[in-house]
C-alpha cells in the first residue's frame, strides 16, 4: 500500500500546474481513485458525507455484467463448436470464445476510455466512470463475428456522439452503448443482421465451409409457419423454454442468458443501483402487450401474435436490455412516476417492433432509444402534476 501511495505521490507532479501532462489531470485522478479514496474533506455543512461514490455505483453494474461476459465467452465457443461439429469440451470452447470476445472488450475499453480522456482534457471535465460501464455493455451486444474495426468505430460513435458532444456523462440523453450499437446496425447491416453473424466461424481450413449456422430464435419466431405455434417451431429447432432461459443459443455475445440478466437485475434492484420501477415497468409492458397480441391471434394470423408473452422476455436481447440498458439512470427519466411509464412503453414497443416489423427482428434497442428521447417529456409532465399538487411558496 505504501509503495502504491508513494508511486502516486511521485507521479502527481507531472499532472499539476504547468507540468506537461497537466491537461491529463482527470486521467491521473481516475487512476488514483482505483486504489485510493479521496483525501478531500468537507468545507461546510453537512459535515459528513455518504460513503457512496459514482465510482462504486458504476463498479457494481460492471460486477453484475461479468457473469454475462463469461457466459458469453462460453456460449460463443459452444455455438461455433456445434456449428462446426466439433466435440463439445468445456475448455477448448471457453478458450475459443475468449479469443473472440476479449479482443472486442479490450478494443471497446481502449477506444471508449481513450475518447473519454481526450474529451476530459479538452473540455476540462473529470473522467466519468460511466464510460467503463458503456465500454462493457457495448461489446456484449455485438454479434460474435463483428470485425474489430467496427467495434472500434461503434464505441467511438457511442461515446463521442452519444455522450461527449452533449457534455459528457450526466448530460447525454441517449444511452451511449446503444447509440453505438444502433450506429453499427444501420451503417453495416450486412455484418449486423442475418443468420450467419451470430455464430463465430470456427476456422480450421476446409472445415469452416462445413459449418452449419443455426438460425436465431428471433428469426425463427418471425418466420414460423402458420401451421405451427412459435413455441413448437422453436422447440423443433432445439430451443425449448429452458434452453432459451439459460441462453444456449446463438445471439449477441453477452445478451442471451435471461437467467444471468435476471440475477443481475435482482441484485441491482436490491442494492438500489437499478430502478425497480423501470425494470418492473419493462416487464409489465412486455407481458401486457404480448397478452394483448394473444387476443388477436387466431386462424390465419401470424403465429408470432399467439406466442406466449414470457417468450418475449427470454429470447433475444430483451432481458439484457431490461436489466442493464433501460436502467441507465441518466438517459431514463428522473421522476419515479415517469420511470414506470418509461419502462412500460419500452416493454410494449419492444413487442410491437418485434412482431409487426420484420425488418427489425430485435426491438428492444430501438424501443429504448426511442423512449430515451421521450424521457424529458415524461419528466416534464410528471413535474407539472407535482407542482400542481404543491401548496405554492413564493
Amino acid at each position, binding site marked *: 500500500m505504501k509503495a502504491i501511495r508513494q508511486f502516486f505521490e511521485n507521479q502527481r507532479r507531472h499532472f499539476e500546474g504547468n507540468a506537461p501532462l497537466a491537461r491529463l489531470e482527470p486521467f491521473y485522478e481516475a487512476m488514483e481513485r482505483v486504489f485510493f479514496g479521496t483525501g478531500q474533506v468537507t468545507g461546510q455543512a453537512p459535515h459528513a458525507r455518504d460513503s457512496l461514490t459514482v465510482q462504486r455505483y458504476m463498479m*457494481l453494474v460492471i460486477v453484475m455484467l461479468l457473469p454475462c461476459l463469461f457466459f458469453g465467452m462460453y456460449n460463443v465457443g459452444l455455438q461455433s463448436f456445434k456449428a462446426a461439429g466439433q466435440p463439445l469440451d468445456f475448455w477448448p470452447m471457453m478458450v475459443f470464445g475468449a479469443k473472440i470476445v476479449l479482443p472486442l472488450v479490450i478494443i471497446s475499453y481502449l477506444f471508449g476510455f481513450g475518447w473519454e480522456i481526450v474529451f476530459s482534457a479538452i473540455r476540462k471535465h473529470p473522467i466519468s466512470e460511466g464510460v467503463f460501464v458503456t465500454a462493457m455493455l457495448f461489446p456484449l451486444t455485438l454479434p460474435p463475428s463483428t470485425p474489430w474495426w467496427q467495434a472500434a468505430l461503434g464505441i467511438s460513435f457511442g461515446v463521442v456522439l452519444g455522450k461527449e458532444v452533449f457534455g459528457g456523462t*450526466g448530460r447525454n440523453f441517449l444511452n451511449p452503448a446503444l447509440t453505438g450499437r444502433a450506429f453499427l446496425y444501420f451503417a453495416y447491416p450486412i455484418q449486423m443482421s442475418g443468420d450467419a453473424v451470430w455464430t463465430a466461424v470456427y476456422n480450421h481450413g476446409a472445415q469452416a465451409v462445413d459449418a452449419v449456422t443455426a438460425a436465431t430464435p428471433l428469426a425463427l419466431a418471425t418466420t414460423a409457419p402458420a401451421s405451427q405455434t412459435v413455441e413448437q417451431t422453436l422447440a423443433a429447432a432445439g430451443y425449448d423454454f429452458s434452453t432459451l432461459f439459460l441462453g444456449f443459443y446463438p445471439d449477441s455475445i453477452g445478451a442471451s442468458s435471461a437467467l444471468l440478466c435476471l440475477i443481475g437485475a435482482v441484485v441491482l434492484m436490491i442494492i438500489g443501483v437499478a430502478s425497480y420501477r423501470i425494470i418492473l415497468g419493462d416487464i409489465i409492458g412486455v407481458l401486457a402487450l404480448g397478452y394483448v397480441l394473444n387476443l388477436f391471434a387466431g386462424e390465419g394470423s401470424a403465429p408470432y401474435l399467439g406466442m406466449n408473452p414470457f417468450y418475449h422476455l427470454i429470447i433475444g436481447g430483451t432481458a439484457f436490455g431490461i436489466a442493464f440498458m433501460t436502467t441507465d439512470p441518466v438517459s431514463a427519466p428522473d421522476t419515479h412516476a415517469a420511470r414506470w411509464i418509461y419502462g412500460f412503453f419500452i416493454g410494449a414497443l419492444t413487442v410491437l417492433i418485434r412482431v409487426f416489423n420484420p425488418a427489425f427482428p430485435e426491438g428492444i434497442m430501438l424501443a429504448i432509444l426511442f423512449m430515451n428521447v421521450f424521457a424529458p417529456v415524461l419528466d416534464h409532465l410528471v413535474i407539472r402534476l407535482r407542482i400542481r399538487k404543491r401548496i405554492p411558496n413564493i
Partner: protein
Amino acid sequence: MQKLTMKKGYRFRMAGAPADELVVLPAPARVAVLPERIPHIKPRLLVKKGDQVQIGSPLFEDKRNPRLRFLSPGGGTIHDISFGPRRVVQAIVIDRKENPEPETRFQAVTESQLAQIDRQALVDRILDGGMWWAFRELPFRDLPAPDGEPPFILVSLNAKEPFQPSPAVYLKDHEQLLAYGLKALNVLAPGRVRVFADASESSVIEKAGQWLTHVVSGNYPCDDPATVLYRIKSDASQNRAWFVAGQDLLALAHLLREGRYPIRRVVAVAGSAAPDRRHCQIRLGAPLSQLVDDARLRGGERFVVGGLFRGYSSDSDGYVGFYETAVNVVPEGGDPEFLALFNPGVSRPSYSRTFLSRLNPKALVYNCNMHGDLRACIACMHCADVCPVDLLPQMIYKSILAEEVEEYLELGLLDCVECGLCSYVCPSKIELSRTFIATKAAYAKEQAVKPD
C-alpha cells in the same frame, strides 16, 4: 394531540450520542457573541474595545431594523472585537468580572400580568430584553418583523439532528417555565401556537404532553419546524410561519418572568471523537475549550458547533453561538483510504444499500471525508427520496444553475428545510443544500428591497 408520521428523511445509526447526565459547568472567564453566526442580520456595533458592559447591555443592533438589539451575555470589559473578510463582525469577546457580575434588570411580567398584557406591550418587552432573536420566520429563517402577524408559531422541542440536547434533559425542572413561555406565545398568536416533540421522547410527552399539539414520528429532520409546517399548512398564506426552538423559548420565558437576561444554556457535547459525551449547562457564549478538553484529543478532529448537518466548524478556541446548542467532535478523516472503492463497507455509513453496513446493527463512525469527487449528476434520485418535503433537489439545482427563478420557486425551493440531507446522500458530491441556502438568502435580500 395530533400524530404526524413522516416517512422520508434519514435514520442514522451514528456513534457518539451524548449521555443523559447534565453537568453544570462553572462560569468561564470569557464569553462571546458571534454576530457572524446569526443569519441575515447586518450588525451595527454599539460598543468598542475596552468598554464596560453589563449582562443585558446592548452590544449591537441590526441595521435593517434598529429595534432588534442583541445584548451581552456577560458583565465586564469588552476584550476584543474580531473582524473577518469584508469587515464582517465575527466575535465580540467579553472579559467577565466576578462577584458581583454587573447586570441590567428588566421589568418582569408575572403570570397574572401575562394574562392581561396586550400584544404590543409584550412585543416591546421582548424587544427591550433583546430576545427577539428567539423568533425566526420561515422560509428564510430570518428574524421576523416585530409587528407582523404570524400564521403559526411553531415550537420544536427537540432536534433529531445528530447530536442535539435531549429535551428530557433541558426541560427537567423547567416545565413551568415552558408553560409560561407558551402562554406568552399565545398572546402573540392566539390559538396559532403549535408545539411538537418527537414520538421517541416518551418522558417529555408524559410530562409536557398537555402542552403538545403534535407528536411527530419519523427520521431526521421530521421534527424541524419547516417539515412540520409543510405537513400542517393548508394554503399559501401560512408559509411565513414563525418558529422558536425549545431552549430559546425557555430563554424568552426566563427574560419575561424574571426580568433578567437569560444566560443559561444546555449544550450537548457529543460525536465519536469527543472525550466526554454528555449534556453540559453552560453560560450563553461559553468558549469551546470549556466543553472539550483539548489535551485528551488524539489529533485530527473537527469541532462542529451545532449538529453535524447544519453546524459550522470551528477551531478549538472558538465560542458557542446564540442559536447553537451542541458541540460535536468528529474525526476529520483526511487520509485517503486504500482501496476504498472495493471496500465491502461493513462499517461505512451510507443511505444507499450498496454497503454491508446495511446489515450491521452497530452504531457507525461518521467522519468529514468527502468520500468521493465532484461528478455530474447521474439522476440516482437519492436526494429526492430523502427530501422530507418532497422536493426534487436535482431539478431545483439545475434550474438554479440556469437562473430560472420562476421555475425553482415553483418547484418549491422555499419549502427547503435546509437539513443538508440532499448534499449528504449525493454520490456525485454536489453541494445541493449549500446552493439552496445561498439562493434562498439571495432571494430574501431581493424581496427585502422591494417597495411595499
